[in-house]
């Protein structure tokens, strides 16, 4: 069966930049597809292609049996004909209209009583009661975000496009709204495509992940699967895996691969399809640091690597420990642990790493 949304399109900009938009939403109803990547990777362009604000040079976009765009047949539905809800990054509320008029803006074809009823519903849904007569300039960032979302929802769109919906807010508001937004989207039961460059936001809000870099889609699929098993090192780096190193596969015994990285050896679960080279992706959270260098009885961790501390830098409640164990390795530990062990630069320590936490990407 065909996917609900199929987008396979390309936009070429003058000057040589090309952005490729390849994504699918399997079914109608609630799902959040996250477009993830560094700034300049083309995420917003993909959203604009879906919205019809950019015209694809090749390829096609189809939603639920309707062709929105088909470069070969010269089809390009304007945004007005796509029945979508678009939340731009800057919110773009109409500054000369009140909150109620902003919400009702797209409803002008409906009779006045229905319009008023819908505005009332939206004010209640987004917790904006009492603000109906305010101008956008008189609202807080979070309120503006909710008005913009309400305006996008007013016409009951078939697809919701959110461009960095939380990035304009301060940190506490972001954390609070992440959960609220996901709950709201679930209740609305509309397929959503969301752009973000924030890993935590992607993990909180998304079901499916499309990783983009330099105008092309590097990997897409179920969000946890992509985070756990990036298919190439660029994706791993984009996803924020602290350590990505290349090594040689020495042996594979009973599903356990031994990777030689410089002078060090790392044991890792065999993902299958290994040749002689592979990238090891190791998250800082998965690396522990110990003072003793001898074998520890009663530990399941298969990797104990002698290491020297090269750098210590605080990251919120955590401390990032830069290690040299023949290759650069980063560990994230709590500050208290760091104090208790009295870690300082130049110390000889032992890096502890479960084989299951090392993700190998075949690379010859």
């Amino acid at each position: 069966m065909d996917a609900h949304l199929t987008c396979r399109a390309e936009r070429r900009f003058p000057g040589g930049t090309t952005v490729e938009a390849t994504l699918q939403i399997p079914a109608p109803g609630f799902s959040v597809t996250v477009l993830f990547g560094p700034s300049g990777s083309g995420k917003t362009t993909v959203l604009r292609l879906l919205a019809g604000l950019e015209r694809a040079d090749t390829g096609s976009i189809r939603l639920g049996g309707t062709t929105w765009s088909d470069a070969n047949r010269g089809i390009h539905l304007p945004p007005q004909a796509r029945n979508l809800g678009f939340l731009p990054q800057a919110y773009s509320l109409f500054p000369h209209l009140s909150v109620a008029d902003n919400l009702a803006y797209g409803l002008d074809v409906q009779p006045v009583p229905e319009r008023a009823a819908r505005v009332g519903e939206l004010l209640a849904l987004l917790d904006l009661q009492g603000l109906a007569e305010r101008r956008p300039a008189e609202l807080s960032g979070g309120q503006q975000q909710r008005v913009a979302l309400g305006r996008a929802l007013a016409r009951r769109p078939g697809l919701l496009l959110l461009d960095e919906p939380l990035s304009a807010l301060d940190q506490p508001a972001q954390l609070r709204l992440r959960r609220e937004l996901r709950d709201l989207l679930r209740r609305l039961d509309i397929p959503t495509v969301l752009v973000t460059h924030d890993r935590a936001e992607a993990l909180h809000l998304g079901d499916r992940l499309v990783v983009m870099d330099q105008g092309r889609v590097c990997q897409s699929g179920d969000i946890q699967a992509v985070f756990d098993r990036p298919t190439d090192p660029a994706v791993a780096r984009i996803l924020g895996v602290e350590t990505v190193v290349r090594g040689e596969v020495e042996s594979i015994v009973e599903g356990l691969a031994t990777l030689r990285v410089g002078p060090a050896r790392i044991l890792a679960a065999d993902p299958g399809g290994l040749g002689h080279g592979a990238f090891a992706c190791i998250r800082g959270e998965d690396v522990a640091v110990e003072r003793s260098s001898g074998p520890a009885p009663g530990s399941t961790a298969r990797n104990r690597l002698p290491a020297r501390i090269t750098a210590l830098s605080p990251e919120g409640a955590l401390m990032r420990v830069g290690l040299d164990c023949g290759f650069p390795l980063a560990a994230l530990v709590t500050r208290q642990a760091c104090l208790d062990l009295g870690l300082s630069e130049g110390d000889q320590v032992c890096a502890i790493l479960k084989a299951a936490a090392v993700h190998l990407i075949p690379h010859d």
Partner: protein
Amino acid sequence: MDWQAIRLSLWLASLTTALLLVLGLPLAYWLAFSRRRWKFLVEAVVAMPLVLPPTVLGFYLLLAMGPRSPFGRGWETLFGRTLPFSFEGLLIASVLYSLPFMIQPLAAAFAAVDRGLIEASWCLGVSRLRTFFRVIAPLSWAGILTGIVLAFAHTLGEFGVVLMVGGNLPGRTRTVSVAIYDQVQAMDYGPAARTAALLLGVSFLVLTFTYALRRHQRKPWTLI
């Protein structure tokens, strides 16, 4: 004072401004948003009256309206009268002469409207035309006001083009600036001084009013 000339000038300026507004909204929209490569040509043509001597513009207009040009002949067969030295001819000349004073403030104001607002409107299913009237025009009110004021004031004060195209027929083509010129030529300084003072006062009042309305806009020091 020559009240007949004053009335004629006010009527001419009002009609010119109204015509320019109707013409100017779509033309300025096109200039503000079109991505055509040859747009600069249209921009240059629109700006021409700013630098062209009025006599030169008047001369070519006179030729274009004359019985030897297809336009002049066409007008005559359609309406049964000739254009040169008529009020209609003067009106056409005024519209062309004041074109940049309407177009430039409009186009600048339209182009300054946040693109994101326009796109947000489209994505809410609102057509381009309705987006213009619901978003672009309301947010460009200061530029539209400036265009109206400048076009009106500029038409009120025009002289060279009037002489070339309209001549000096009382009640038909004799405008207030021509009247002042005539009075001075006839050494009739009293009425000339009163009429000049009236024009000075009107110009000052209109500009003061415009600046006062726009005083909260970002660039108070320029009208365009």
